[in-house]
């Protein structure tokens, strides 16, 4: 694995207005702080895991990386090129290199399109395949690669199971020969046995095609299993980042520790020993001052409400944003 950054996210912030078009009436529009000042790098060839609970911003961050949403502030570059400044044909070229597989196998395929078209059309759009024969040939090749058959080409999405639809979604993502695929909870709605099939498929493909993955999931065990490096997000902020064995094996940030303690392990011997974290995630509209995790942190100190923690290096590759590290 070459440690060359493929994607660089720099100070990305995204705020969503809470209500639309009442701008005339109020001066202060309440904003949802989905992401605040997140910076990280995705290295070529790796699987980068992104975990966090609801409202942490991981899905929004993924969308911003692909420029499906524009950030309120900050930069995203892909292979050194600023993605946010791309227009027209340049943007289209970027779309060819960075693809996405969505969580919901039931919503991510156009219910009126035949599988052949779903999988083959993107290639046509980018000029990879032109004639109907070429498209069919390419679609067939892709379907076979993800474990489906020729007879599926002429079928419609509703005729397939969740696992099969995800395979189709993967085939579609591959159709434009991308370098990078964002996997947004790709197996969250699938059974355990089907999940294993899809994960295996993704790993084989990564090996074969030298793909880079960002794997977003709320399933800690899964992310710990498939990722090389990972980052933990909480309420729009990055709290810990590093190699998987570091972040999940020897977590430093109290939130990561809480997540790992809360994560149910299929092993009756492993019981919860650490005290449960209290409360729930606070509102993203007015996040807590200083460290956002302080309202639930068992190790909270005075400084936590006043100063936002910055990243401290636990090792060359492992970073954590917590005032405890400062000691």
């Amino acid at each position, binding site marked *: 694995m070459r440690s060359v950054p493929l994607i660089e996210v720099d100070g990305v912030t995204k705020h969503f207005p809470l209500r639309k078009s009442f701008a005339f009436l109020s001066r202060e529009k309440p904003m949802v702080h989905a992401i605040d000042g997140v910076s990280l790098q995705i290295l070529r060839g790796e699987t980068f895991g992104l975990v966090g609970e609801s409202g942490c911003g991981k899905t929004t961050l993924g969308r911003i990386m692909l420029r499906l949403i524009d950030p309120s502030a900050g930069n995203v570059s892909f292979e050194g090129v600023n993605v946010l400044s791309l227009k027209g044909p340049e943007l289209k070229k970027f779309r060819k290199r960075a*693809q*996405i597989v969505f969580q*919901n196998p039931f919503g991510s395929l156009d*219910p009126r399109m035949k599988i052949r078209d779903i999988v083959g059309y993107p290639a046509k*759009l980018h000029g990879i395949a032109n004639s109907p024969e070429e498209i069919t040939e390419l679609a067939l090749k892709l379907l076979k690669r993800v474990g489906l058959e020729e007879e599926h080409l002429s079928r419609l999405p*509703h005729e397939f199971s969740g696992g099969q639809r995800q395979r189709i979604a993967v085939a579609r993502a591959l159709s434009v020969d991308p370098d990078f695929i964002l996997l947004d909870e790709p197996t969250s709605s699938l059974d355990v046995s089907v999940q294993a099939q899809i994960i295996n498929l993704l790993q084989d493909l990564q090996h074969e095609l030298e793909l880079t993955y960002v794997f977003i999931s709320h399933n800690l065990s899964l992310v710990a299993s498939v990722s090389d490096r990972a980052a933990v997000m909480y309420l729009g902020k990055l709290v810990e980042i590093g190699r998987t064995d570091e972040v999940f094996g020897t977590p430093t940030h109290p939130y990561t520790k809480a997540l790992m303690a809360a994560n149910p392990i299929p092993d009756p011997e492993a019981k919860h020993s650490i005290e449960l974290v209290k409360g729930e995630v606070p509102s993203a509209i007015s996040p807590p001052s200083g460290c956002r995790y302080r309202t639930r942190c068992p190790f909270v100190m005075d400084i936590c409400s006043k100063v936002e923690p910055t990243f401290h290096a636990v090792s060359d590759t492992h970073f954590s944003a917590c005032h405890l590290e400062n000691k």
Partner: protein
Amino acid sequence: MNEVKFRARTPLKAPFAIRLLRNSPLAIFGVATIAFNILMAISASSISPYDPYAMQLGNKLQGPDAAHIFGTDQLGRDILTRVIWGSRVSFEIGVVVVALSLFVGIPLGLVSGYAGGWLDEGIMRVTDIFLAFPALVLAIFIQAAIGPGLTNAMFSIAIVSWPTYARLVRGSAMSIKQNEFIEAARAVGEGKLRILFRHIFPNVLSPITVQSTLDMGGAVLTAAGLSFIGFGVQPPTAEWGAMVSTGRDYIAFAWWMTAFPGLAIFLFVLGFNLLGDWLNDFLNPRLRGVE
């Protein structure tokens, strides 16, 4: 190791639809009625016993008998013939009104639903104005302004019908927009216009299909209403609503003048309503991906 083949589910194809149709006697009746009307309209000239305009003043206001199965009207014209020929006018009204409404309503609805913002607000306010009035009343006002006649009637009915389609398409477009396959299309590099035509438009067809089917009957009913009060079709055109209207004056002693055209309207509208209802049930669960 045993190989397990993936099994695909029942496809949305004609044979399946026909099998499903067989389970619904009401829908079958609806389709049969529509088919009957179509046949009637197509073969009007060959199956009509008389000329629809031929007056036999010596034979006026005759009750149903062997020579005139539906009787004659106040000018001695054969009512059966006029009912048969009336089906042509009815189809003309239905098709033209629905086509015009779609032509205006779909693009406006698509733009409104997909673009949002000020465009959406503007278009919706316009539809609000139209929808604030009861359809028939508004149609009467419009036709009062532009004059009587079949063409003007169709035009005014279309004007009151398009806002419903625009609303329908807009709502549909807005909910389809939320689906991830739209985001997937963007991720793949498709532009806004392409997404609108390739993905959103085909998926709004279902609710439109149902509404159009129901409107075929609705348009005829409205036209009948207009004719009833003197707008719409002008004599001597054989149109069911006009026939019912004319028959009003003779209802006490020539009930057949209103009864048979009225029955024709009823069957025509019922047929389309039954089919529309069935279509609604048939199309919806599939799109939601519900088994």
